[in-house]
């Protein structure tokens, strides 16, 4: 009981009619971790977050937050969330919104403190409807800070923020995490996941397809691509080369994905009549698409 797991998902599935949004996720997140939930739209990120918040029930499996059911954890102010859009009343001022939500918890941070932490003290008297998208997002962040939650869930948290706001926001989040707050954020920005998370969980089609540090996840899809013009390419010899992952032939062009592209280049130029060589690094973007199988 002393080392309560922050998030525990056991074989969780969620169906909406015939659609299987989540197809069996097993997951443990320890206190103080900053975890990115990375995946394309429709991967099941938001559905999973909804279940962690008790907004929807899993079709099967068990969900626990701080060792409690999600609704219990929310009743105690242990978990809060920053949602993507909506969720605010336009006719309230920023301060009123924070005071309203804050009054609902048994114990809360002061209104002034969360306004300061979210960097919107100067907006306190403004109507929410007159705030920009980024300012509204900071207000949602302020609301999420109110109960001083042990677990903070963020669904695409920096949507609508400018570069500066984004940096300040993540600075604040890292600061929190260093004091023991667990943070789980959903994103489809690769750099954001890589830059700010200790751990990246890659989800696709309702399943976890990779789970590790940023460099581990990237290594899964490391390598470069050699493209060359080679009529009558000998696919068998290419594949036999060390470190070659795959070979594709499109007409007279051959694409070779390999870890050791130098060896492939040497072979192509030295031992065949291939020409017009091009070597490109496979970006994180492509690695991501590869792992999540979006291309197919």
């Amino acid at each position: 009981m002393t080392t309560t797991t922050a998030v525990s998902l056991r074989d969780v599935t969620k169906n909406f009619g015939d659609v299987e949004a989540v197809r069996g996720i097993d997951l443990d997140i320890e206190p103080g971790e900053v975890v990115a939930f990375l995946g394309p739209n429709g991967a099941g990120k938001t559905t999973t977050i909804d279940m962690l918040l008790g907004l929807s029930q899993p079709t099967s499996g068990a969900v626990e937050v701080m060792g409690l059911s999600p609704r219990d954890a929310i009743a105690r102010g242990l978990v809060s969330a920053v949602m993507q859009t909506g969720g605010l009343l336009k006719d309230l001022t920023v301060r009123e919104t924070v005071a309203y939500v804050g009054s609902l918890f048994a114990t809360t941070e002061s209104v002034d403190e969360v306004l300061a932490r979210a960097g919107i003290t100067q907006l306190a008297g403004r109507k929410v409807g007159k705030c920009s998208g980024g300012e509204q997002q900071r207000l949602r962040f302020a609301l999420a800070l109110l109960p001083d939650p042990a677990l903070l869930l963020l669904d695409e948290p920096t949507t609508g923020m400018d570069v500066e706001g984004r940096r300040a926001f993540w600075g604040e989040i890292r600061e929190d995490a260093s004091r023991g707050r667990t943070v789980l954020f959903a994103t489809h920005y690769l750099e954001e996941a890589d830059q700010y998370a200790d751990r990246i969980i890659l989800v696709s089609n309702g399943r976890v397809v990779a789970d590790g540090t940023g460099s581990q996840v990237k290594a899964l899809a490391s390598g470069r691509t050699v493209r060359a013009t080679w009529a009558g390419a000998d696919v068998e010899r290419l594949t036999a080369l060390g470190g070659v992952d795959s070979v594709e032939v499109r007409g007279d062009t051959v694409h070779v994905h390999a870890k050791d592209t130098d060896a492939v280049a040497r072979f192509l130029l030295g031992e065949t009549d291939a020409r017009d060589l091009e070597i490109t690094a496979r970006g994180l973007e492509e690695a991501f698409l590869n792992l999540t199988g979006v291309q197919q």
Partner: protein
Amino acid sequence: MSTLTSTVTSPTDVTGRAVARWGGFTPTMLGIELRRMLRNRRTIIFTLVFPAAMFFAFGGQDGWDEKVGQGNVAAYILVSMALYGAAMTAAAGGAMVAVERSLGWSRTLRLTPLNPAVYILTKALVALTMGTIAVTVVNIADIIQGKPHMPVGTWIACAVLTVVCTLVFAALGVFVGYLVPGENAMQVLGPGLALMSFLGNVFIPITEGTTMWHIASLTPMFGVAEIARSSLTHELPWYAVVNAVVWLALFVGGAAWWMSRDTARV
């Protein structure tokens, strides 16, 4: 920097966490909800100014001092207009529930300890408070004018019955709030309730027994209007009670049906 270190408890301290009392209900929340209603110019015009203006338009007509039950015609019209005003406030409050759901505010509230039933209860309290304000405003305007006349006990009984009757329209407000998405529900409810008031024997007396009267007796304002005035007129026909109960059931049923459809995607 000092703001960052001022947090006392560690976020990981699970044991020291209390659950909110009263299902999350607080005076702060009720206060902000009331302030919102009073700040809304459209609500104020429809609910507070319009009914009083209607009284001055109809309450001063010929024969205002003729006897009706325990009072006079002006008192009868006063109760009717107060009912109209209170119904409008209640409907406006009800419509806000639907608007807030469409804005995702209910989702934000679901992430707090606030119990959904307490939320609805708070909204009902706001509707009743606003209804009381509307009834009081019409009454004060009419006392100043000086024409209505009825015993004080009757006066109070009518006002209380009126406020209670407005819950029918709070349910209607929720219902319409779902039918007309966005913030335009009041545009429908405003003229709609005025029409119902004409049909429901609230603004203009309809001669009993005529075809018009038979149609009127089926409309939603008719029943509650008879109930609100019963303390003055000392009449409460059975069909008026049936009318009020049936419309309440229909509106509550409709509102509940929409809400349950809606909770699936909170």
